[in-house]
């Protein structure tokens, strides 16, 4: 970020075209520790805009990306999540009006401007700070904002684009105008984009010939894209920061591969001769957890996201024959996973490096005598307060449960006769899972606050969709 901002500042003195190009391009990646500053993921940087009044230039460099449990998201990440572009920059020195055409391009795999695929809510670009004079003296005023709203502070001007944007789609231009006195030589402001985002999941599904591959789809069933086509079975995807990792049997045993969620080349991550399975990327896509067979039993391992630095995660835990599975990261140092260390499948909370502690072990009291139930497939909620998982604690019928980690309260989410499993949290707090219906698997979503309402993701139910993982950004 430091070098990116310096680039923009330096180019203020350059011709307009050069300045605009320099500030719009993705900054060169920083080396770790460069300049004593933590490297900044460009996906997280805010959209800082700087206008040079005399040179008639206006450029926007990276600014930020939040998410959460509401339909709307506040998004930054210039040139990563969105691309805010300017054109036709002009300054009327008589009227003292600076103007430019602004467009917003969606670089996310998710649709912007709609929460459900049908309702058009549009995209808002709002001023988190500024506009403020950074050179010369004078008050800058937004002249023709679409409205004044409350986003990160009260009464922030915004521009509204009443469109739904698919991947790479750009809004129609809006002409933004500022009142800029002649005494101002440059001004700065920080933008964010506030928009509903249509959730997307990756999952595995068979094709018509029975070959299971990795796919992605929006929650309304649109934008169905096949990500792998190899003739061998690909399954159990995990996704973070537009990186997809999955398990494949194309080499005789299960190995891990990765590729971009947008497609492109595939990279083999493991080639050990042992089976690696159940991959899980950390939220920032820098760490990988997975199971590797050791002495015939799957054991939890961690590694860098490129497959290097593999280490056994809990070497002194369990027995040689106990099985680990289905890990999920809260952050880069804390995991939840399943282990049969004490017989049945239970959930464990592991802070690295350390010893796992039991997170969930339910009793099935619907049978007499009661029995130890199995808990599997855990995933942390985006805010880290809850863990969703599947369990057969209700009379051998596998259902989705949520445990509030702070209170210990476990809530059953699904009640249907038939297996519900593989829960994954969307950024907005809903859960997507697989439901076994009529001998086939299908994807459904449910809001834990309204567990009685479950909605299918409209796919070809004959193709057996499984193992969904939510795309978060």
């Amino acid at each position, binding site marked *: *970020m430091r070098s990116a901002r310096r680039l923009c500042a330096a180019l203020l003195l350059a011709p307009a075209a050069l300045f605009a190009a320099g500030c719009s391009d993705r900054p060169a990646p920083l080396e770790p520790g460069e300049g004593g500053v933590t490297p900044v993921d460009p996906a997280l940087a805010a959209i800082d805009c700087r206008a040079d009044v005399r040179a008639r230039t206006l450029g926007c460099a990276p600014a*930020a990306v939040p998410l959460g449990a509401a339909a709307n998201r506040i998004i930054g990440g210039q040139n990563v999540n969105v691309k805010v572009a300017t054109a036709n920059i002009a300054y009327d020195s008589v009227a003292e009006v600076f103007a430019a055409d602004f467009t917003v391009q969606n670089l996310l795999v998710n649709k912007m401007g709609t929460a459900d695929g049908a309702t058009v809510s549009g995209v808002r670009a709002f001023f988190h700070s500024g506009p403020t004079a950074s050179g010369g*003296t004078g008050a800058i005023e937004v002249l023709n904002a679409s409205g004044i709203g*409350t986003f990160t*502070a009260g*009464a922030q001007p915004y521009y509204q684009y009443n469109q739904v944007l698919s991947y790479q789609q750009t809004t129609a231009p809006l002409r933004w105008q500022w009142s800029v006195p002649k005494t101002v030589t440059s001004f700065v402001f920080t933008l964010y984009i506030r928009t509903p985002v249509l959730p997307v999941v990756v999952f595995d599904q068979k094709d018509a010939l029975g070959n299971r591959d990795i796919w992605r789809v929006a929650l309304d069933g649109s934008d169905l894209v096949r990500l792998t086509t190899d003739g061998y079975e690909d399954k159990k995807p995990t996704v973070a920061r537009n990186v997809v990792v999955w398990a494949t049997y194309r080499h005789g045993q299960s190995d891990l591969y990765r590729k971009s969620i947008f497609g492109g080349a595939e990279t083999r991550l493991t080639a050990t001769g042992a089976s690696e399975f159940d991959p899980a990327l950390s939220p920032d896509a820098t760490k990988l957890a997975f199971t590797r067979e050791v002495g015939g039993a799957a054991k939890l391992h961690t590694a860098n996201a490129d497959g290097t630095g593999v280490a056994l995660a809990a070497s002194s835990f369990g027995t040689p024959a106990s099985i680990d599975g289905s890990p999920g990261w809260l952050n880069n140092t804390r995991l939840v996973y399943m282990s049969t260390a004490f017989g049945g499948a239970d959930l464990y909370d592991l802070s690295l490096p350390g010893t796992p502690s039991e997170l969930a072990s339910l009793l099935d009291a619907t049978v007499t005598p009661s029995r130890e139930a199995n808990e599997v497939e855990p995933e942390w909620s985006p*805010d880290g307060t809850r863990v969703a998982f599947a369990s057969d604690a209700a009379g051998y019928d596998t259902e989705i449960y949520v445990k509030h980690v702070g209170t210990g309260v476990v809530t059953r989410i699904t009640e249907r006769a038939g297996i519900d499993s593989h829960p994954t949290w969307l950024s907005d707090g809903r859960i997507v899972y697989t439901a076994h219906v009529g001998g086939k698997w299908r994807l459904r979503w449910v809001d834990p606050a309204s567990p009685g309402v479950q909605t299918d993701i409209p796919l070809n139910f004959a193709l057996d969709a499984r193992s969904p993982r939510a795309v978060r950004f």
Partner: protein
Amino acid sequence: MIARSFRRRLPLPALALLLPLAAACDGPTGTGSLSIDVTGALERSQTVTFTVLRDGQPVDLTRVDFTFDPADAVQPAGGAGTFRLLRAGAVTVTAAMPGLRGRRTVDVATPPMVVFDRLLSGNRDIWKVALDGLDLTRLTTDPGDDQDATVAQNTVVFVSFRGGNAELFSVPLAGGDAQRLTNTPFHELAPALRPDGQRLAFTYDEAGVAKLYTANPDASSRTWATPNFGFDGSIETGPAWAPAGGRLVFVTTSTGEADLYRMDPPGEPALFVGSANAAEVEPAFSPDGERVAFTSDNTPDGDTEVFVVRIATGAVTRLTTRPGPDAHPTWTRDGRLVYAELTGSTSRLRWLNPDVPGVSFPIETGTGNAARPFAVP
């Protein structure tokens, strides 16, 4: 002395109500048999009514001759016995009738003061003003943009763009030279001094997005307050300190929309006030620490208004209802709320009593736009 004892016995917000109060008098001090009661808030620029009693019974005020010391301490304000208080300090009122006389001294308080940023003639600077619009004083004069002031222990910290990006500066509340506190290529914004003046909270965006930091009051030894909270890209802003105990409430977009979280550094934040698809921002603790005012667009028409939440019960009350944004709430030391009222591109300061939210009063700050008030504790 009267004003002080008055404050001890009544809820402080009542001082601002201008409700007819039977003021607690120290008793007649005059000669003869007249005694004097006063009704109204004993605060500069407020209007009070003096009641004169003879043998405990009210007398016809049109027959009473009032004199004051200092003589310019009041001016008549309509009805008999009703006066506007023109200055703070001790005021002696003498009531005289033929053959009778009474005297009483009252203490007139100075109204609470706020610092704020004022855009005047194209330059935004930090100013201070009392709630009655008097004592308007400019604290910064740099041609660069100064804004978003916080104050504690007679020190004002504010944001200035005079160096090309947002940096923190300080200036004495009494006036003087500004001192630069930060000097980084990143933006330091949203400063909040702890009421004891010993800690400073603000946001810093070295990580690419504004995150909450705490530091010494001179901004040295800054520490990221929320390293294990939220997402890398979630924005944190608007920190506010509790009057005691070191608790912070701040704004984060970690759940999608802006919500209020509370934390006791170095503890972990917890949700304080949040709603789906609406924003809660700009928290401000009441001086007794029992309530937090904030700004939200959680209204039927999406208009931005000022709300208050009572911490013990979680009960939320909407305080402003005017069409158009009302924002930037701050509590005065006696429990009034000052906020900014925006109409088009014009921003003005007003105050109200949170217990009587239907009535608000303008704070005269002259020409130009006044915004982001912060009450002097």
